[in-house]
C-alpha cells in the first residue's frame, strides 16, 4: 500500500502537483489518469523518488520515502519494479541479461538459479526462446513484456508502469494490460499505472485517480468512472467519437 499525503511539486514558478492525497492499494491495479501535461508523470516520478517532492509525505507500507536516509531509500527501491514507456531495456545486454540484472546486483543467487528465474519470468509474460536476443531485435510489444519480466524478476512489492500501452496496437495493449493485472493479483503487488488509454481504464482500473491541472480531481473505479457527473472526467472519458457513440447507445 502506498499513501500519498499532501504532496506538492513545483518547477520554477509552475506548480505541477497541488496538495495531492491518494492511497494506492495492495493487490489492485491503481491507475493514474489525466490529460497530457496534467502532472501524472511528475506524480509517478515523485512516487519512485526520481523527483524530490517539495512538501508532503509518500509512505510505502508506513515507511516514509520522503524523509528516510539514502541507504533506507535504496532498500525500498529494491522492492520496486518499474516498467518505462519505452521499456528502458539495457541496449548492451541481451534479454536474459536484462532480466537477471536486478538479481545479479542484489542477490547471491547462483548463475543457474538466476537463469531459471529469468526463464520463469519470461514464460510468465509469454516469451520463450528469446533469451539471447538483444533489445534492438525485439518488437515494441516484446520489449514491454521483457521489461515486465525484468520488473518482476526480483519479486517486487511495488510495480510502477508509465504508459505501458504507448506505441502498441489495441490487441497487444490488452495483452499487456491483462498481464499486469494478473501479475498484480497473483503476487499481491501494489501496482500503479500511469495511462491515458481508456481501454486500460475500462479493462483493469481497480482504482482510478484522475489528475486535472495538478489536482486530484476525482477518485473511483472502472465502473463508477462511466457514470460520474464530473464534467472534467466526462470530457476526458468521452473525448473520442467512438466513446461518445458507445455512451449514446
Amino acid at each position, binding site marked *: 500500500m502506498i499513501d500519498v499525503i499532501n504532496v506538492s511539486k513545483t518547477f520554477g514558478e509552475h506548480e505541477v502537483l497541488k496538495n495531492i492525497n491518494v492511497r494506492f492499494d495492495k493487490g489492485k491495479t491503481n491507475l493514474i489518469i489525466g490529460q497530457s501535461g496534467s502532472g501524472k508523470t511528475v506524480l509517478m516520478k515523485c512516487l519512485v*523518488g526520481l523527483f524530490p517532492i517539495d512538501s508532503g509525505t509518500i509512505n510505502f507500507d508506513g515507511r516514509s520515502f520522503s524523509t528516510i536516509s539514502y541507504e533506507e531509500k535504496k*532498500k525500498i*527501491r529494491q522492492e*520496486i519494479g*518499474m516498467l518505462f514507456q*519505452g521499456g528502458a531495456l539495457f541496449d548492451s545486454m541481451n534479454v536474459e541479461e536484462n532480466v537477471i540484472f536486478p538479481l545479479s*546486483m542484489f542477490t547471491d543467487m547462483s548463475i543457474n538459479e538466476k537463469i531459471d528465474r529469468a526463464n520463469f519470468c519470461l514464460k510468465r509474460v509469454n516469451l520463450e526462446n528469446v533469451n539471447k536476443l538483444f533489445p534492438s531485435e525485439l518488437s515494441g510489444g516484446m520489449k514491454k513484456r521483457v521489461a515486465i519480466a525484468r520488473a518482476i524478476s526480483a519479486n517486487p512489492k511495488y510495480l510502477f508502469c508509465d504508459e505501458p500501452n504507448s506505441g502498441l496496437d489495441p490487441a497487444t495493449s490488452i495483452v499487456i494490460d491483462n498481464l499486469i493485472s494478473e501479475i498484480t493479483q497473483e503476487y499481491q503487488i501494489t501496482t500503479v499505472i500511469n495511462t491515458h488509454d481508456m481501454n486500460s481504464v475500462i479493462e483493469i482500473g481497480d482504482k482510478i485517480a484522475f489528475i486535472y491541472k495538478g489536482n486530484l480531481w476525482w477518485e473511483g473505479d472502472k465502473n463508477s468512472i462511466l457514470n460520474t457527473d464530473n464534467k472534467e472526467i466526462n470530457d476526458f472519458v468521452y473525448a473520442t467519437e467512438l466513446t461518445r457513440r458507445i455512451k449514446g447507445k
Partner: protein
Amino acid sequence: MKILSEVGKYLILMKEVFHKPEKASIYKKQLLLEMDNLGLDSLGIVAIISVFMGAVVTIQMAFNVDSPLIPLYTIGFATRKSVILEFSPTIVSLILAGKVGSRIASEIGTMRVTEQIDALEIMGINTASFLILPKIVACVLMYPFIILISMFLALAGGWLSGVLTGLVASSDYVYGLQYQFKMFDITYALIKTVVFAFLTASVSGHYGYFTSGGALEVGRSSTKAVVNSSIMIILFNLILTQLLLA
C-alpha cells in the same frame, strides 16, 4: 558563473562516482568490458597515427639538421624527445579524447534520454558510480599501455622513414635514440597520460550523465565532452610540465 556551476556539478558527480561499489563482481565484469571497449578498441587508430607521425617527425628533423656541424644521430635523439615528451602522451591523448570521450558521452547520454539510467536508479543502484567509475578505471589502466605502444611505434616509424628515404643511417638513428636517455622522460610521460586518461573519462562521463532531451542533446553532449576534455588536457599539460620539468 556558469563555469563555476559546471565545475561544482562535476565535483559533486565525482563524489558520487567514487562511492563504494554495490557489488564488486558486477563492477569487475564492467571494468573488463570497458578495458576492451575503450582501450583495446583504440589500438588500431593509435598505431596508424603513431607510425606516420613518427615518420613525419624524423623527416622534418632530418631537414632541419641539414648541417655538417650537427651529427646525424641528433635526428634520432630529437625524434625520441619529441615522441616521448609530447607526441605520444599529449597528442595521442587528444586523439583519444575525441574517440573515447565521444563514445563515453554518447553512450551515457543515450542511456539517460532512453530512461535506462532512471531504470537503474529505481533499482537502487548508484548510477554515477556504476556507469562512470569502470570507464575511468579502464582508461587510467589502459592509457599507459596504449601510450607506451604509441611511443614504440612512432620511433619505429621514424626509423623506417629515415632509413628508407636515406636521410639517416640505421646506426645513427638508433644511437640517437639511446643517446643521453633518461628514464624520467618515460615517467613524466606516463604521469601525464594517467592524468589525461582520468580527465577524458570523467569529463566525458559528466557531460553524458547530465544529458537531457533527445538525440540532438546527445550529440551536443558528445561535442562538449570532446571539446572540454581537450581543453582540460591542454591546460593540465602546461601545469604538469611546469611542475615536473621546471
